[in-house]
């Protein structure tokens, strides 16, 4: 039975130092507010699992939350590099970051295996040089003799996702691009869903995903909790912020300044959004070029 908590309570209760956590959301519905709260609460030694580290893990890595990263594509989509991720891998700043690296297909299958209660998933695929830097094996089909790729189940301690709505019973609904969020929640031991709002009942959405309340540990209401990502029918992707991030994150000092001002020195997501929106558009324009 999911419980309605504040984001602060939920992170305090669900996320512990040393946990393996998966904050999922493929471009859409990325749970940024939850990541910021984890940073505020100073969690350390986390293993971060996520297909696309994106800005959300760039921030957590740069703030020293992570010892290890399980991922398949670490870039700023359409913009370029993730500078904090690169700085950690290339220079060990702010600390060493172990990598466990997959392709989107193989990492997706790790969640599917775990959600399905299987120890492994099989797929057609090409290990290439990744094969030596990840957990993959080969399995032979007993019917055809074909060799297939196998990956082991990935069971995060906590999965955190953002969704559009919860209902009053604690069921959750998301729609639009839903990525691997359902699988991540079903694969995890605990789960937190931040939502745009609580509604009396869900409207129908083809391709929508419903998570019944009994598979969700906690729900926290966090409007615009995906910013700079988006929630379809609630917000637009802040493409300008994604472009600005390139300049904000390029140098360690500016990154730390920005994180201090926007995350550490704001008490919650509402204050974070207010501070962002108070910034002069000129600054945004300059930074975003």
């Amino acid at each position, binding site marked *: 039975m999911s419980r309605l908590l504040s984001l602060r309570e939920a992170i305090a209760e669900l996320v512990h130092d040393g946990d393996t956590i998966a904050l999922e959301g*493929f*471009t*859409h519905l990325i749970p940024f507010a939850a990541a910021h709260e984890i940073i505020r609460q100073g969690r350390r030694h986390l293993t971060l699992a996520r*297909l*696309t580290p994106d800005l959300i893990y760039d921030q957590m890595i740069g703030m020293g939350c992570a010892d290890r990263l399980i*991922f*398949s*594509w*670490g*870039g700023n*989509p*359409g*913009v370029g*590099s*993730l500078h904090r*991720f*690169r700085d950690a*891998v*290339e220079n060990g700043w702010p600390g060493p970051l172990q990598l466990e*690296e*997959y*392709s*989107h*297909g*193989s990492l*997706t*299958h790790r*969640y*599917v295996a775990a959600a399905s209660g299987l120890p492994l998933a099989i*797929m*057609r*695929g*090409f290990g*290439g*040089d*990744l094969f030596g*830097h990840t957990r993959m094996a080969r399995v032979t089909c007993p019917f055809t003799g*074909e*060799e297939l790729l196998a990956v082991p189940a990935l069971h995060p301690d906590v999965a955190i996702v953002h969704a559009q709505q919860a209902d009053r019973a604690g069921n959750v609904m998301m729609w*639009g*691009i*839903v*990525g*691997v969020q*359902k*699988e991540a929640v079903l694969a995890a031991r605990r789960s937190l869903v931040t939502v745009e709002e609580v509604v009396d009942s869900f409207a129908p959405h*083809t*391709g929508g*995903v419903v998570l019944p309340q009994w598979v969700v540990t906690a729900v926290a209401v966090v409007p615009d909790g995906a910013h700079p*990502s*988006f929630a*379809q029918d609630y917000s*637009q*992707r802040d*493409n300008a912020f*994604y472009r600005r991030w390139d300049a904000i994150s390029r140098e360690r000092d500016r990154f730390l300044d920005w994180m201090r001002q926007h995350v550490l020195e704001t008490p919650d997501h509402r204050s974070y959004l207010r501070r962002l929106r108070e910034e002069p558009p000129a600054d945004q324009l300059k930074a975003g070029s």
Partner: protein
Amino acid sequence: MTAPEPGYSADEMMTVAAARELRGTRVCFVGIGLPSLAANLARQLHQPDLVLIYESGTIGAKPSRPPLSVGDGELAETADLVVSMPEIFAYWLQGGRIQVGFLGGAQIDRFGNLNTTVIGPYERPQVRLPGAGGAPEIAWCAQRVVVIMRHRRRAFVERLGFLTTPGLCPGDPERGGALGKGPTAVITDLGVLRPDPATQELVLSELHPGVDPDRVRAETGWHLREAADLGRTAPPTAQELDVLRRLSSE
């Protein structure tokens, strides 16, 4: 950007050539960036029923302009259906339903293998690249692959720093169990490379207008052979340029 001919850029020539390469394609799995721009150009120019599939799970997306990311809202809102990522990889890509996988890359070798992982040693790289994304599966499962990359010597290399995504498999007609043929064209801003049917090695098959073959060789890190019937790409038509510029303006 160089302008090999008055009136259009080398990048524009590349994108137009890539869009033309999709002629006759029904279903295309599109990587973000240059592939997305070219695929959307093809759809608007000559393939109105081209089905675009993005790894975010949008099938039949009809964006009015190429998205910044594979998860932009317009992709989902204009798609025929949106499915989960497990489904897009299992039922749609691995299910063998994709005719063309459209990829970019940071490094490519003479057999069309791609590196998007690291330059330098894996444990302590000079440059940490984004990683594989969906490219290994796309290359493995699409019926054929089209690669689009700017032609630079640091990208067209004798030896990859890391083998992320499989290309052609000389000497293995089974291609190690892959479902498709691998890269049938590498479209660059200088010309088009295609595999030699006998050796599977990528050879220079077309030169874009005004490009000197010496320049292509200079920008290629391996000894680039020429196809026997080396051709010249037709320059972009006014219509091609017009649609492309409308698409890329923001």
